[in-house]
């Protein structure tokens, strides 16, 4: 079974040379740490920066240079700053190649819910609705089940949706799943996790086709 870092490491393998990538808050933010260093990738943050670098050294934080999670950041050579309309032009206009974000629920037709639990928690959608409505390539990083052990990989989302039919791939602590017309196709198992365990933790339709390889990190 993977921890959050493991999920980030596995997703980092999906990042290809020449990609502009938007990373959501939480596990997705960690992905930047594990991208191969022999490829060129630029990270976009929707609050208005392209070419994000690592966190600053202590004493070098600048209140005017933050990411969408409001964390202090640095920029790399070639970076640029821009306003929010331009930022979402990059996103809606499909100039960003890959979007990686977290989710509370994902359904087998590619719907995603991650912004609201009615009556309990409302943080807002931020840029997530714009990202999922437009991105060609969306990978969701999430835990397979909630704290009560209930599946978050569902036939149908129960929470208010963020986007419909948009998720292409899901990487959880247990598995890598591809969203297909017929349901979640099991592509890989997390180290030490059996197909049976994945099946048990998955409420949505799970397609198991032949031997399922264990993922390499």
């Amino acid at each position, binding site marked *: 079974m993977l921890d959050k870092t493991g999920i980030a490491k596995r997703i980092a393998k999906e990042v290809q040379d020449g990609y502009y990538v938007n990373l959501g808050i939480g596990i997705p933010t960690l992905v930047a740490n594990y991208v191969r260093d022999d490829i060129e990738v630029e990270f976009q943050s929707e609050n208005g920066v392209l070419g994000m670098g690592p966190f600053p*050294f202590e004493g070098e934080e600048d209140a005017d240079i933050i990411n969408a999670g409001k*964390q202090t950041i640095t920029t790399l050579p070639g970076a640029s700053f821009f306003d*929010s309309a331009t930022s979402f032009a990059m996103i809606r206009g499909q100039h960003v190649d890959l979007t990686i974000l977290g989710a509370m629920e994902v359904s087998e037709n590619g719907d995603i819910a991650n912004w609201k639990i009615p009556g309990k928690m409302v943080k807002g959608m931020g840029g997530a609705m714009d990202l999922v409505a437009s991105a060609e390539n969306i990978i969701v990083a999430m835990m397979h089940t909630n704290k009560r052990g209930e599946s978050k990989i569902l036939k149908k989302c129960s929470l208010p949706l963020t986007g419909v039919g948009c998720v292409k791939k899901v990487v959880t602590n247990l598995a890598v799943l591809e969203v297909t017309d017929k349901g979640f196709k099991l592509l890989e198992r997390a180290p030490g996790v059996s197909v049976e365990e994945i099946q048990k933790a998955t409420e949505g339709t799970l397609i198991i086709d032949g031997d399922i390889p264990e993922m390499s990190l």
Partner: protein
Amino acid sequence: MINKKVNSVSEATKGIRDNMTFMLGGFGLSGIPENAIAALVKSGITGLTCISNNAGVDDFGLGLLLHQKQIKKMVSSYVGENDEFERQMLSGELDVELIPQGTLAERCRAAQAGFPAIFTPAGYGTEVAEGKETREFDGKMYVLEHAFKADFAFVKAWKGDAAGNLVFKGTARNFNPCMAGAAKVTVAEVEELVPVGALDPNQIHIPGIFVQRIFQGEKYEKRIEQRTVRTRE
């Protein structure tokens, strides 16, 4: 040169009244019009509708206005950092319209640029699109979103001049350029008001035509919400 310079924040906020709609720039606490917000708090006006990506934190930014119950309605995309906001929203004291961040930016820009509305794919098939007109273009569905109508836009820039020209720094730019010129009156506050002619015309982010009043803020706290650092090896 048409002079937009005013000498104080009270002069800059002249005309604010109860029940008005304001746009306020900033992302989190970065690039917020700190001095204008302080003046709004001091004014005690109520029944406000505030269009702003976030709602500040409990004790800073728009959180200060929320604490005094001066805000009737917030139009935002993300409010996760503010407990008082969440409390007022869940209890029904505060009317909240949560909209996608890109839609928020574009509804400001539409108002600035003279478009009555725009079509966006964001939110299609979700509760954000409920009751709104939708339309198909080239096989994809879009939602009609209207331009905002606001009485004042309060924006914050790094540098500016008396002509109203603005230059922003880093990610403190965010919604500020989209809101400049998107309301009946745009009030710009800057960290440094420089002499006219000192800014290179090639490097100006927002031309003065979008700004009606400009002043140099008395002080900037520039709080950091999530101070994150790495250790030196």
